[in-house]
């Protein structure tokens, strides 16, 4: 509504003409100026400017809803009360039912921890019919790092839902619903986002996965103001995409080493320490999320995947509804699964730390007749070879 034309707002004729004569054609132009600037520019008195502005404002201001009507609407229109179950029981309980619709959910963790595995599982689940806990719709998977493996996808499907994936037509149908895009540059990514916006509602798309956001942005820009600019456009675009189509959006983020200039304290905290013995902050982890603080403000739910003393954990690091819980998980041939559904409560800022210590088991899968092997490849656990016997 910001670009509403002033000529369409029923202002008194005389003032409307003044606006158009000064080339102030949209509400955005008018509201970006202060009252006094407008007086100068339009050459009219304060009262006229005020009354014109209040008329414009009334039309541009969005209507309100009470929180109650908002809630009733959500429960009526949305399947599962607006949450998409991940199939990981403990995590779903912590998240009040699963990944929320209409907002961004971020997965952040070191390379090879299982972010892509989680994304694969989620896309698969979303494509399933509703009686299997899915969303019965298409999934758009933006695969920036070329890590999407359809073999692995089908393997997860076969292991977790053998009754569906043993039928070849069904497997084909489900896999056919997952559309993979592989943009090679930021420009291409931007373009495909704009196309997606158009086709989301028409084509029964029920989930959007972006793996990974960081690869795109860090690939093209150096850190700093320029990068923040490009990023902020994408942040607000993806957020609005999620909101208006009311689908869950899952985005992954990489980690990088902590720079010495990464701030974690306010100036008043530093001052208060001056008198006392200088105790430099002890970081137990040298990793931070690759996209910075502005991005972190934008995601509604952040799940941290980390490895600590030989075990992998998934932590609910930021969420408006969930307590800070950590769940141990592992990755098997049927995809990601929790070792325990009882989360351990994590105290303090520890929930945001990303650990990558202790070698997590590299070979997770027992090589069986189906010939599943995982190989360590430069820090990534990549599944390179699957037998797809179940499908043949």
């Amino acid at each position, binding site marked *: 509504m910001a670009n509403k034309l002033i000529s369409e707002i029923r202002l008194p004729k005389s003032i409307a003409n003044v606006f158009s004569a000064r080339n102030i054609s949209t*509400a955005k132009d008018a509201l970006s100026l202060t009252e006094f600037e407008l007086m100068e520019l339009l050459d009219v008195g*304060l009262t006229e400017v005020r009354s014109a502005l209040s008329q*414009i404002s009334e039309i541009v201001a969005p209507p309100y809803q009470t929180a109650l009507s908002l*809630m009733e609407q959500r429960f009526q229109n949305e399947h599962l009360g607006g949450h998409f179950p991940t199939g990981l029981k403990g995590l779903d309980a912590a998240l009040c039912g699963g990944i929320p619709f209409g907002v961004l959910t971020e997965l952040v963790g070191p390379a090879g921890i299982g972010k892509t595995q989680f994304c694969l599982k989620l896309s698969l689940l979303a494509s399933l019919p509703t009686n299997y806990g899915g969303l019965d719709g298409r999934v758009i998977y933006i695969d920036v790092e070329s890590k999407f493996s359809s073999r692995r996808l089908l393997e997860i499907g076969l292991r977790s839902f053998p009754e569906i994936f043993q039928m070849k037509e069904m497997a084909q149908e489900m896999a056919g619903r997952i559309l993979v895009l592989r943009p090679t540059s930021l420009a291409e990514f931007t373009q495909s986002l704009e196309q997606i916006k158009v086709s989301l509602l028409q084509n029964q798309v029920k989930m959007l996965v972006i793996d990974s956001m960081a690869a795109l942005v860090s690939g093209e820009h150096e850190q700093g103001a320029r990068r923040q600019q490009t990023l902020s456009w994408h942040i*607000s675009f993806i957020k609005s995409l999620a909101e208006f189509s009311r689908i869950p959006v899952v985005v992954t983020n990489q980690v990088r080493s902590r720079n010495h200039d990464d701030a974690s304290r306010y100036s008043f905290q530093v001052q208060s320490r001056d008198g006392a013995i200088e105790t430099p902050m002890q970081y137990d982890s040298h990793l931070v999320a690759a996209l910075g603080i*502005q991005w972190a*403000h934008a995601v509604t739910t952040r799940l941290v995947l980390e490895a600590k003393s030989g075990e992998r954990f998934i932590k609910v690091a930021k969420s408006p*509804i969930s307590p800070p819980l950590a769940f141990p998980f592992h990755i098997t041939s049927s995809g990601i699964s929790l070792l325990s559904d009882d989360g351990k409560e994590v105290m*303090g800022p520890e929930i945001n730390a990303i650990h990558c210590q202790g070698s997590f088991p590299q070979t997770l899968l027992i090589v069986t007749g189906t010939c599943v092997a995982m190989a360590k490849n430069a820090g990534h656990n990549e599944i390179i070879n699957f037998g797809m016997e179940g499908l043949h």
Partner: protein
Amino acid sequence: MEIWRLPISASQRGKLISAGYTSLSSLSSISSSDLARELKVSESEAMNILKVASHSRGSETSNASCSIVEGAQSAWDMLHDEESLMHITTSSADLDNILGGGIHCKEVTEIGWSSLSLIVNSVLKYKLTTAFGSESIIFMLIGGVPGIGKTQLGIQIAVNVQIPNDFGGLGGKAIYIDTEGSFMVERAFQIAEACIEDMSEYNRFLRKDFQECKIKMLPQDILENIFYFRICSYTEQIALINYLDKFLSEHKDVDMSLWSQVKVIVVDSVTFHFRQDFDDMALRTRVLSGMALKLMNLAKRFSLAVILLNQVTTKHTEASFQLALALGDSWSHTCTNRIVLYWNGNERYAYIDKSPSLRSASAAYSVTARGIRNSSSSCKRIKMM
């Protein structure tokens, strides 16, 4: 008073000055037809100018004739007013304490992510101290790092403002302006439920006439009194704030015509759109300060509290990077109070970064399933005492 201060258009002002009218008194005896001839403008325009001029002169002379300047209020009266003001509790007694009882109406408070939890301690405790809830105006800015609990504090305040008068609350309504899409209605429901439970518990302990004061509120009622606006661009944000004046006048309390029913406006967050759509930083500063003035005006006229939530960014000072609230230095002048939420060890703390009347202090809070409460360790301390 001089001509250049009259709220008329630039060309009219130019004509007046070039015709030799520099002060208001020079306009006092002239007729509109003479003025029209002299300025070469239409008669109606001249009449308009004279009307504006006599209006401004009127306010000027009345100032001179009164011993007290019009519109001014003595410090003693202000003190009296402030004492009668109610506070909005944060549900965290510790947080309320450092805020001098809770969030004051008529002020604008900016809450950084780190300060949110201060507000959350138990409603029970709050009722005893009646710290935050006031009908005075608070303009408060709250800021903090992602995940510290800013949105939670915003929701908690929107719920707490509705605690009925019998329980030491304001019994008002709330406006929640969501720029980020982070408002979770499920969470608001949880917090509302917990708030009602706390109230009935308070009833049981402190009132014998349990039957009479039985709580009739349902969480649904609380949600119904939260007006939710979803903002998608900074233009809409400005437009909405311009429009709120009208909205609030339309939603006035029937019994108390002076006070609006809406007692708090929460903006979550004031920053989001302003951080991405602007290339011209000087323009941004002007638009922002215009917006802040309007909010301040609303706070005064309708006796309500304005809570702005702000994001955190990094700032390079004295050869090191530090966290700072977003939107820059000139913006930090606009808020009456500023609270920063931060992590200290394993606890969330709220720190009063700026306030004209409160000592700078910090308090721990925690975010629980029931909302914002005192931090568990400080609860233990209180029990021991």
